[in-house]
């Protein structure tokens, strides 16, 4: 009889723990964005660029703060590092990772490039009228010359969306939308870099001074 009572208490404890665990898991969504990014088909600029990825950029994580929304915890850092490591070597002749923008650079760097995330937003279908997972990432791109002076500072807003589908989980759909958004920033950066007015002017000036040096 005592054995049966102990068994019932044990099973009840187990059931309570299980329900508590399921409740906790059910309320939170953790997503580590993963995917592959192709190398862009573009004309490479004959420049050596020092890239500054600060710690926050490398490990960027979105943690939901709003109480009305599910507890989303989205790791973007690794995926965006993968994207920039695929895009930048196609944009420039040589890309070197550097700790910080420095006037006294020993690597003969022509430009320093420092990307950062300013804002991240997303929607899941339960929050909108459309059956779409949407992601917006606002990037701030800074370019400094070899002496460390700021040349250009501009914003690229990346957007990605993916439709909801039967048997597709929130995590899978949001991961897809994230990859599309990251590809979008890669497209915006690689196609418009030389058209940013300040960079265009700098490239023109550099080209003229190189021509003047040649006999």
């Amino acid at each position, binding site marked *: 009889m005592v054995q049966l009572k102990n068994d019932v208490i044990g099973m009840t404890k187990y059931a309570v723990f299980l329900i508590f665990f399921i409740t906790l898991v059910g309320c939170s969504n953790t997503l580590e964005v993963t995917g592959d990014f192709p190398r862009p088909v573009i004309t490479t600029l004959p420049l050596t660029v020092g890239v500054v990825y600060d710690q926050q950029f490398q490990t960027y994580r979105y943690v939901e703060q709003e109480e009305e929304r599910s507890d989303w915890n989205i790791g973007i850092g690794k995926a965006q590092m993968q994207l920039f490591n695929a895009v930048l070597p196609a944009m420039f002749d040589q890309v070197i990772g550097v700790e910080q923008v420095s006037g006294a650079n020993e690597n003969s760097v022509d430009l320093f490039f420092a990307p950062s995330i300013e804002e991240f937003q997303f929607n899941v279908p339960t929050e909108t009228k459309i059956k779409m997972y949407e992601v917006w990432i606002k990037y701030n791109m800074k370019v400094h010359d070899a002496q460390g002076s700021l040349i250009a500072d501009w914003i690229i807003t990346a957007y990605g969306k993916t439709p909801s589908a039967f048997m597709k989980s929130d995590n899978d759909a949001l991961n897809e939308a994230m990859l*599309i958004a990251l*590809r979008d920033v*890669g*497209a915006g950066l*690689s196609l418009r870099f030389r058209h940013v007015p300040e960079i265009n002017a700098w490239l023109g000036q550099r080209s003229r001074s190189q021509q003047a040096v040649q006999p």
Partner: protein
Amino acid sequence: MNNQQLCIRVIIGCSVLLLTSCTTVSVDQVKHLATNLTSGESVVVIGRRSGRNYETEPELISCIGNSLSKGEAGLNVIPEQQFVDSLYPWFEPRTAPTQLRQLQHLLDFKQVAQIFDDYNVHYIIWVDGNTEKTRSSGSMSCGISATGVACFGFGSWDHSSEYEASVWDYRSHKLIGKVSSVADGTSYMPAVVIPIPLIAPVQAEACKGMASQLKQFFSTSVK
């Protein structure tokens, strides 16, 4: 098995057949120019993803691609993702050419033109549209008891598909023609203890209709 049981089974069987066949598809095509797809040449089927409130589903694109490549007269179809990745970042949702003159402009870039040549692409089929739920009705309630889970009720919903495929000739830089497909269907879910979904394959029917029309489009040209 007595007559009554047999009768019930026949009624249930007929009802299931009637319920699952509730999809109507209409396909139209306009052909401006003759196609001339020679052996070894390829086509690529790509979804338009620039719409704000909808997105052409990747599974529809792969369904059309698979249907086109099947059979004796199957075409060489380049998988969408492979093609888009090879030409990154030129065929992304916000950068893909929406007009022929944009494609022409893009092909001035030698690296891009080289990739098209490597794939031996002759036709680009752009598919735009989506499948959406247009109506839902009914109710269902489920309960948990010591003996298990049971549901009772009836639900139904309508889906509508609308797609249009534009066929571009990469070599002549001309619009060859268009194929459109409209499909509607109603799905049902009766539940007596166990819910039985009777899904109308609206998107699959739209894909089938569009693929067979596109195959006809090219059938006269494969040499």
